[in-house]
């Protein structure tokens, strides 16, 4: 699957982890509108700074795929319902659809979700998968956390480096 950039030439070369194409191999559980909203949500959680944010890394596609394939039905319902109510909540809190809020407004709304008894499950599902998708994306692992596939060594006692990079399996 990986490496299949498909027809999405607009994607930068490093974003070949998940594409619309790989997500399409899965049962679709979100409408186009919901998918766009999810993209805005993951981007709010991990935004572009001097490096790409979650949306450009297709993390919203990853979240959708994981929930469709690896989670029980209840998680899918949560995701659907949560996304459907997000624009209403945005209207109430800043009188605009979620996507049109500015960073501060969106951030405030999501922070509020994290505390809301009805919404916190939906929010933590999306947040956890966003972190996981972002941290295990090709871009982050090759450019930012410098994952080594073949370390070729084990040293048991080395001085702690000045800046520790995470090393997962």
């Amino acid at each position, binding site marked *: *699957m*990986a*490496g299949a950039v498909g027809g999405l030439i607009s994607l930068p070369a490093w974003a070949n*982890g*998940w594409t619309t194409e*790989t997500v399409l191999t899965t049962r679709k559980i979100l409408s186009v509108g919901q998918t766009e909203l999810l993209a805005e949500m993951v981007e*709010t*959680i*991990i*935004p572009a*700074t001097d490096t790409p*944010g979650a949306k450009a890394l297709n993390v919203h596609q990853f979240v959708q*795929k*994981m929930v469709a*394939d*690896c*989670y*029980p039905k209840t998680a899918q319902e949560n995701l659907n319902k949560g996304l459907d109510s997000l624009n209403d909540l945005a209207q109430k809190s800043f009188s605009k659809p979620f996507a049109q809020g500015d*960073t501060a407004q969106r*951030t405030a709304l*999501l*922070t509020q979700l*994290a505390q809301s008894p009805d919404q916190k499950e939906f929010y933590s599902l999306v*947040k956890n998968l966003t*972190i*996981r*998708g*972002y*941290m*295990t*994306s*090709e871009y*982050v*692992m090759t450019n*930012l*956390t410098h*994952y080594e*596939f*073949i*370390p*070729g*060594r*084990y*040293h*048991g*006692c*080395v*001085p*702690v*480096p000045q*800046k*520790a*990079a*995470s*090393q*997962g*399996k």
Partner: protein
Amino acid sequence: MSYFNIDAQALNTYDAIVIGSGISGGWAAKELTGKGLRTLVLERGRDVRHVTDYPTTNKQPWEFEHRNQLKQEVREANPIISKCYAFYEGTEQFFVKDAEHPYVQEKPFDWIRGYQVGGKSLMWARQTQRWSDFDFEGPARDGFAVDWPIRYADIAPWYSHVERFAGITGNKDGLATLPDGEFLPPHEWNCVEKHFQQKVAAKYKDRHVIMGRAAHLTQPQPIHFQQGRAQCQHRTICERGCPFGGYFSSNSSTIPWAAKTGKMTLRPNSVVHSIIYDEAKGRATGVRVIDANTKQMQEFYARIIFLNAAALNSNLVLLNSTSHRFPNGLGNDSGVLGKYVAFHNYRAGISGEYDGDLDSTTDGRRPNSPYIPRFRNVLKQETNFLRGYASGFSAGRISRSDQNGIGADLKESLLNPKLGGWYVGSHMMGETIPKESNYLALDSSLKDPFGIPQLKISIAYDDNDDKMVKDYQEQLTEMFTEAGFKNIRVRDSHAAPGLDIHEMGGVRMGKDPKTSMLNKWNQLHAVKNVFVTDGASMTSTSTQNPSLTYMALTARAADYAVKAMKKGLV
């Protein structure tokens, strides 16, 4: 089913037949072909060739569609195999799915299997310790099971034989409970593991923490290069198959070696139904095989037969090999076939933290970890339970990031994890006692997809095991406390037997044909040309991992079988 004419029969006749191509079958194939026997290796699963059939071995983490998590539908369809820690998106292809080979759990038992060329040798965790006389003398001394017909001295040269070929890393520790072997250089310790080793050594004369012994090429020798294998690169994703041949598997080592002799015929997709016993000749003459693709039954013939289908399946084949002479299973004059099954107790674990050595950390990865050999009831009975346990141990440092925030702050903290303190952990590997009430039988009505009776498994933990869990937790807590570890937490997974994947017995060795199935050469007392050399043959289980012992017993039995054959004894 003898519809064959004489030519077909001749074509289907070999010097030897090996049933199963896993850890032990691979050794049978290598040794028998190496001694010039035309050998047919029957394997119920598909062929898996070294490197070319390891589909996930070179995949980067982000190349797994689900980041190695199992799909919900896979988990729901496979409640048994999904419990195995080594079963994930990158290894699904090597494990038996629940529906492929149903069985009856008279008591809960998680049967973990790999049906393919290489068997479970592809996915195993590669820990390889010799057994000692404390293990082989155990039953005679402690009064359980029956006396082993062999002692450490009988098998020691065969341990050396297989260690040199397989490539075992380890340190010569000079311990009576854990004899040294032919070792490649040991893996490196980290500072906290060393610290624990020293603390334990200072407090207890009879407790040792040593570097694990494992089937990895830390420094390949000419014999390993001749196998086409190379130095282990510390990727620690071995269970996906290793393109370097860095660890020992049948696929990287024994099977291609046997193939090179030109004497081996490997027949995958061949489910052995039973062994054929010829009453007139008073010997086994061959095996009945169901072709997995066509479901047709076919017969193959040979002078000697090695049964290496892995412990429970070897029991199944013998139980299903009935004849007028052996109505209760081949060689089962004693009635003990299928009984006295035992396993290892992996239920308990302990974890903790350590806040010393904070200026040091580790670099790279290590496909191995330290090991604490058995220290309970070794020289005398000192507890209220029989036998003892060995333990794994390891330490490491984790980086953590604060995941509470959102936005640019969250991103910043994710990308700049803080190195936390050291974590330490251990798990127990307890010896369980073979008992008559832990048995296997054939279900009288249920069949598997090949029309073979389903195996009924009736195996459970007992009071001895519960006491051992408690003692492990207490003793390790004491040792962890002594080492200054904090936040110590013990657990008991209460997992059912089976997940340890060290099932043994049912076709046990022994001196007396009235109470055992096999003699000291792993030969059926009653059918001298059938050898069972996998875990089914174990009289008791020891606290060490078992597979190295299966390899050594197999090589030893093959040597005997060929000599006996030449003398006309089998």
